[in-house]
């Protein structure tokens, strides 16, 4: 990489971490090529070297990705999606998220989320309709892939909603217009509409090491000093477990609205949770080394959106 490009990217992320400190996450991604066998192996994993993976939940995610007809968001390294999450307890929540692509400089990604979608309502024809009611049939498209007139009308109404709301106080729109990388104008995104929808099964794990079994890592790196109420429910009152990261194992299927193409993707994602991030990075390095020794995984940086678009050969 040219030095000037490297400096520019570093400056960009320095800006991201100062202005958008609360809007970033420190992640690593691993693609699972030989889908089913490795997926099942990871699914059943409990220990990798000094680390343990404690499975704590299995959720279902539906994601509707938006872009303009010429994929301007993807070209500039962003993805924008409406997400529906169903937990194993059947709790349902919705969000609207903007994410930047991970790059080669570091693993920090911009993530901006609007999570109270119940607030929003709009007019379709002469009827008042909630944003969630507009989205639901699109999420359901993953079940039968029937592009009904109703879904097509909703895609059009969502486009109208976006055009009306582009200057409203909605975080993903605010960040699209000012993110330090490419500040989008309303004109660039005038045709923004749903293009992909995916369904993912996500298994989540707490990445820990057990200092009662092996205290050398605690002696070397110290304790993740979090308060009781900052710890995940499953780790409360378990004083021997030192929490380092969260891992999520995704098995996703994506569908396009414009044709009947389908793609399946699997990936493992790791997010640093150590209160001193630099120590967390060292510990995750150690985990990663042992993980890659044990399994045939490839380190990746592309989001599922970019991977899906690449495979489905849309917008290329």
């Amino acid at each position, binding site marked *: 990489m040219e030095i000037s490009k490297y400096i520019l990217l570093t400056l960009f992320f320095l800006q991201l971490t100062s*202005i*958008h400190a*609360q*809007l970033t996450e420190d992640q690593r991604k691993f693609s699972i090529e030989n889908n089913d066998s490795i997926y099942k192996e990871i699914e059943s994993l409990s220990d990798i070297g000094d680390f343990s993976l404690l499975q704590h939940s299995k959720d279902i995610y539906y994601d509707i990705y938006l872009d303009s007809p010429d994929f301007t968001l993807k070209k500039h390294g962003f993805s924008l999606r409406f997400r529906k999450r169903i937990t194993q307890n059947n709790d349902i929540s919705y969000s609207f998220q903007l994410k930047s692509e991970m790059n080669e400089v570091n693993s920090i990604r911009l993530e901006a989320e609007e999570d*109270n979608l119940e*607030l*929003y*309502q*709009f*007019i379709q024809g002469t009827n008042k309709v909630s944003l969630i009611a507009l989205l639901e049939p699109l999420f359901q498209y993953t079940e039968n892939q029937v592009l009904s007139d109703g879904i097509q009308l909703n895609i059009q109404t969502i486009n109208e909603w976006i055009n*009306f*709301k582009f*200057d*409203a*106080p*909605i*975080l993903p729109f*605010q*960040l699209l217009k*000012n*993110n330090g990388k490419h500040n989008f104008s309303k004109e660039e995104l005038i045709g923004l509409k749903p293009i992909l929808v995916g369904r993912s099964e996500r298994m989540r794990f707490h990445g820990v090491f057990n200092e009662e079994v092996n205290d050398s890592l605690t002696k070397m790196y110290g*304790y*993740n*000093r*979090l*308060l*009781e*109420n*900052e710890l995940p429910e499953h780790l409360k*009152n378990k*004083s021997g477990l030192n929490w380092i990261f969260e891992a999520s194992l995704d098995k996703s299927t994506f569908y396009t609205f414009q044709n009947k193409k389908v793609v399946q993707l699997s990936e493992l994602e790791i997010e640093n949770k150590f*209160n001193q991030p630099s120590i967390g990075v060292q510990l995750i390095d150690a985990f990663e080394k042992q993980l890659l020794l044990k399994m045939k995984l490839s380190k990746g940086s592309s989001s599922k959106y970019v991977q899906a678009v690449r495979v489905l050969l849309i917008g290329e």
Partner: protein
Amino acid sequence: MRNLIFLLFWSVPFLSFSQLLPASLNNNAYPIEIASYIKKDSTIDLDKVRSITNLLTNPTITSFQGIVLPKRKKTVTEKVKALSEDLEFAAFRKKKVDQQLIESLYTLQWIYLSYLQKAENDAQAAITIKEKYAMFTNSIFGLRKLHIKIPKTASSQNSTDLSSPFFNVFPDTIRPENHFDFLAKKTSTNAKNTSIVLLDSCSRNGSIPKFNVHDLVKNDEWIIKWGDEINTEIFASHMFAALGYNVDFSYYSKNLTLILTPNSEVKSAKELIDLLKSIYSIDISRYIQLEGIVSNEMVLNNGQLKPFLGNNFVVFSECLLEARPNQLKRIGSFLPLALDNDTRIELKASLLAHQFIDNWDTREENTLLALKKNKKTVAEPIAIFSDLGTCMGVSVSWLNRDFKAGLVNQLPWEVVKKRNNKLIFKGRMNAQIDFYKQASYSDLRWLAVQLEKIDSSSLRSIVNSANWPPELAELYFHKMAARRVSILKAMNIIDSHPIQFDRKLNLFKNGVQIIRRGKLLKRTYLKDLPVSYTCKKGRMRNYGNK
């Protein structure tokens, strides 16, 4: 039936309807500050609304007109977005403004102006010479203005209920002394289990030493303070709550343990003392009872200390714990002079409450707009009287700007005198004199009726909440009873709960006289406490302990 009444009481604790806009505004009227958001055709001007909703929610906007904007709080941005959505949808449909939209605009503008006030206040490093001069002249000459005319036909006993963001109307079943705990409970504030806190950062505003901390178990945020306001602030908050106002939740704490972590701004007791000395010129070492290192034994007794094994800790003999509950998010001033707030009876009447507790520091900065939220409700604005501690006998030295609160001998036995057709107030205030001058006799009488409800038992309980040494508490009880009577007499209010008091009170402890003829004596055992209750040397002179 009894059970039904009980259920109704707990499910609808405030039986009165709370009115958001000042009572002076009705029939779709609105204050001048929100007129610019309404077009000539009575629809919403969305561009103008968005200019403030984006400023209040967009994290990439970090300054406004050269002033750095304060950190945005999630509860506030959530509320702004909810208000915004009402207005956006109305604008999309070209709906003409109605009472509900006016209330949304009013709340939005209140939050916006308060947020900007906080930004300006934060940007101002120190009190300007102009402000110092204003505080000086207000304190010296202000009282000449605080003469309230008594109308020829003064109304009789007045019992108007004014429930609003400024004032709570409690059911009679909740006694005045319990108002404070009732309001605290609504925000899940409880200091009883707060005995170990972790140090976050040093607060650099105000004039008394303070630190931001959070509770080890619940992670609730608190501020710990030391100095002459430890007792007075707690008393004042309880008294204002008893009268119906919203207040900060302040508690007296004994033997509080503070843990200093490697991430803390200071890492040892010495660094803590030195830092506070450098900022406030006050030595808090007299409050430190014990210091040490978190040991295995301590961890065995309290497993939650495990992550802090080997860290320094400090135990304070006493301090004030002021809550920053998650359900109550602070913005800036409640803006007494904006948005027609100055027409509110309950706000003008607060003059009487300030005078009753002899509060000196009545600046706008000591008022607070906050959003109150619990899990089930949308956040609503409430107006809080904050930082009420400069009261209960204040000495101000004009030679070196030194001042001190909680000097019982400085607290007069009377609040007000009636002379000819005027009420003449005796307490000094450093700000907002012109605003309070607008208070009418009937405004003040309205609050005096609330004051009459405070009986001997209520007053005793409120005085006890402050944790003064017992002899001092006794003297304060007698003085406040006398001050209450002076108000009721001046306004011809029949006292249905007379409280006995003795202006010539004498008190002894172990054969040594502590209080003689209603005056706290110097050279008593109280001189060994961290703050002297008789010496007038204040915060600039280490409370007489230098």
